[in-house]
């Protein structure tokens, strides 16, 4: 009975979602999901301007638990499938969980490098499962995240990474919670705002985009995550996906 009323009421933010790990797609992931990430990769390839070597893309969202880390990680993986050299940067210096996803420790990482505790070579971690993919973990937790991210050392790091990699994908904290993303977004070539279907308020998306534009970030657009089709169109599309997945298998 309680579940019935929960279902009736609008979904509200569940704080426990904040602690959930990003979802890294494997070979068993549904065809339609893998195709969606492939499409996103294609669109990002076309829309992101490339200056001074590679392209740096900021991935952010309005609020926590909207799927920005999932989008960032899986987009990076998709880029590597096109033989691109990709580095994933966990710029959420307060709660970043990228290292946990790869079953490693967060230290040493980005924050440690910026404060000068470690060298550049110490923070670059190649991911064995995905050739061409490396990542930089969060590092030591800090409350002075914005100050570290707006530092010249961070700007220099982005330039260095762009020179070395085809794509630099930076996973940042939510925009309307903390201002950390605003320190990085203007320094990158494009910003992807992640919004979760039937979860993120449209006004919040608009506000986030206004904020990014005000800080002179190049907003590439919105990536809609966790999209659930209506029953009728789901039936229709699942048929199409089945047809094409079957076709590609042959």
């Amino acid at each position, binding site marked *: 009975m309680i579940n019935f009323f929960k279902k009736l009421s609008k979904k509200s933010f569940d704080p426990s979602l904040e602690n959930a790990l990003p979802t890294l797609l494997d070979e068993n992931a549904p065809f339609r999901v893998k195709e969606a990430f492939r499409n996103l990769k294609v669109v990002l390839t076309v829309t992101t301007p490339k200056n001074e070597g590679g392209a740096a893309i900021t991935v952010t969202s309005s609020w926590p638990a909207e799927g920005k880390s*999932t989008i960032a990680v899986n987009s990076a993986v998709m880029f590597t499938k096109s033989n691109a050299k990709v580095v994933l940067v966990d710029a959420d210096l307060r709660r970043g969980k990228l290292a946990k996803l790869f079953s490693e420790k967060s230290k040493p990482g980005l924050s440690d490098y910026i404060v000068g505790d470690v060298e550049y070579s110490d923070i670059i971690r190649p991911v064995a499962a995905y050739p061409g993919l490396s990542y930089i973990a969060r590092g030591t937790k800090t409350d002075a995240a914005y100050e570290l991210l707006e530092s010249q050392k961070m700007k220099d790091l982005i330039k260095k990474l762009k020179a070395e990699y085809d794509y630099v994908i930076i996973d940042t904290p939510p925009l309307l919670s903390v201002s950390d993303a605003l320190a990085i977004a203007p320094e990158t070539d494009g910003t992807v705002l992640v919004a979760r279907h039937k979860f993120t308020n*449209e006004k919040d998306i608009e506000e986030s985009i206004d904020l990014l534009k005000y800080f002179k970030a190049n907003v590439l657009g919105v990536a809609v995550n966790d999209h659930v089709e209506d029953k009728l169109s789901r039936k229709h599309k699942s048929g199409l996906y089945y047809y094409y997945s079957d076709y590609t298998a042959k």
Partner: protein
Amino acid sequence: MERQDQNEIDLSHVFRVILKRLWIVIVATVAAAIVGGVFGYVRYHDKNYYGTTITYDVSIVSYVDGNQQNGTNYSYTDKHMTRMTELLSEDLFMEELMSGIDGAPKRDEAGFGAYVSALKSALHFSYNEENFNGLYVTIRVLNNEKFANTLLKRVEEEVPLYVQEHMIIPTSGDTTKYQTTCEEQSIATIGLMNGGQTRREAVKFALILGAAAFVISCIAVVIADSTDKRLRNYEKFSERYGITVLGVIPRLNENTETEVQK
């Protein structure tokens, strides 16, 4: 033309919203219909009215030198018939009826007024409004068939006498005299007057409440939808705010409500 198109789009949106939440509308409608049906049943299931309608032919007979004449030269009007029904509805006539009913209180006894009121509510007098010669007496007694039969007997005994006695036509001074006659047209028997009423009332209330719930739930669903500002239709959102949608990532497992993609 543009305005018309806009209206059509809005209407189709409303229908889509209702279809999407049709289960809420159906549940509300069925629940209200059940409540209405139960209400109608509870309200009327123990209310059985026993009675009948007796038809009297009221006419005027003229006598000349004591001999009945063919035809009359005097007839009742709407005004006379109205007066007749008023007379029959008065306390005096009720008292007349009570005088022949076992256990009915006398004028100076307790419960007299209540008994008169009960009788008045059980009896209804009307007349034929086309030719003013038909008097109708309807007996309607709640849940007491025996008393209905007693009342029928008393009405059959008293109404003709009372009408003939009180509806007096003044003589014109010559040898012609007039007399009112009141004769029952057919044998009346007491029966159940509201057979099937419980079912009808249950259905009626079920339909009324069901229809009301249907309309209210449709309105509620549309209002709830219009107040929901979450991102639902990304194509419209993109159009409305001029924001590019780079990609749409489906839920990993659409059957799992709690699936988390962070």
